């Protein structure tokens, strides 16, 4: 008998604009997490960075490598930062967080972002062996009303 997987854990539609979206009290009963976000800028038109924080950690424990296409050129970069997604008008991103409840390894994630100016892949690493119990996304421009967040657990 196949094991049911891709279990929905929670979802939310923002009723007010917010600078931070926080996912807390994450169940520890799965192997991986998949987080799906749709959003847009609540004002303005300039793309803004979205910084991630696991377990509330905003210290210098993150690094990432990014590849992107912007409709004309392709590029890539790597930095020791928490900018694992970007927000623009009509944005979605899907983040796969691997082995999030393990306590013997640093955590890695793959984020695929789509919006009106980029298709972007970011591979990120959080240098902590702590099990992930919360994830937050923070943008300098608020996430608009109507933004959606869904989180799923993938069974081993």
């Amino acid at each position, binding site marked *: 008998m196949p094991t049911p997987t891709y279990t929905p854990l929670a979802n939310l539609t923002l009723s007010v604009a917010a600078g931070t979206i926080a996912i807390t009290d994450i169940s520890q009963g799965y192997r991986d997490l998949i987080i799906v976000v749709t959003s847009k800028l609540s004002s303005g038109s300039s793309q803004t960075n979205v910084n991630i924080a696991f377990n509330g950690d905003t210290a210098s424990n993150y690094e990432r490598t990014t590849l992107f296409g912007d409709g*004309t050129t392709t590029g890539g970069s790597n930095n020791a930062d928490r900018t694992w997604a970007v927000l623009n008008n009509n944005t979605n991103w899907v983040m796969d967080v691997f082995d999030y409840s393990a306590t013997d390894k640093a955590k890695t994630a793959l984020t695929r972002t789509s919006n009106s100016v980029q298709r972007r892949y970011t591979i990120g690493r959080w240098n902590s062996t702590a099990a992930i119990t919360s994830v937050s996304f923070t943008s300098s421009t608020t996430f608009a009303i109507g933004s959606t967040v*869904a*989180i799923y657990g993938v069974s081993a």
Partner: protein
Amino acid sequence: MTMELISSVNPGGVNSVTFSSIPQTGADLILMVTGRSGDSTTSPFYVEFNGVTTGYTYLTFKTTGSTEQSSSGTTGYIGNLVPSTYTIGTFCNTQTLIPAYTGSLGKTWSSDSVQENNATASDVLSIAGNSTLTAAITSLRVFAGGTTVFHSATIISLYMVTAGTGGATIS
């Protein structure tokens, strides 16, 4: 089971298929295409929501194994069907995510696709798509460019990812 099959079709010999009366109880839609063209040239294919023919934009990120490219356009582009001249048994394999399809924001899609012909061609294509449609998606049309028809071996499946609660808190 949280990824539910809405419908799967074999559109061989036709130019388009339409999934209508899409349930409004899900969080996301996932469109899976294993496709070949009925024509001898590589054929783009597209999505269209609710019968709306305008308001679509996309940009791509593609690698051929030796070069990377990026382009943009104003259609519901989601991938390329491999031509009928490619080796039998080779396909484009495309997964398109349409998140929050019942939401109030402009609809978006993300498409990841490969097209291959054994060792002679291998493309990876990723697409970010936007639509100005803010209404819930109730129907979805998948169609090939121009008068191209889908090869008889093509399979197009639409899935719905259901939402749920109880495993985390979002605020």
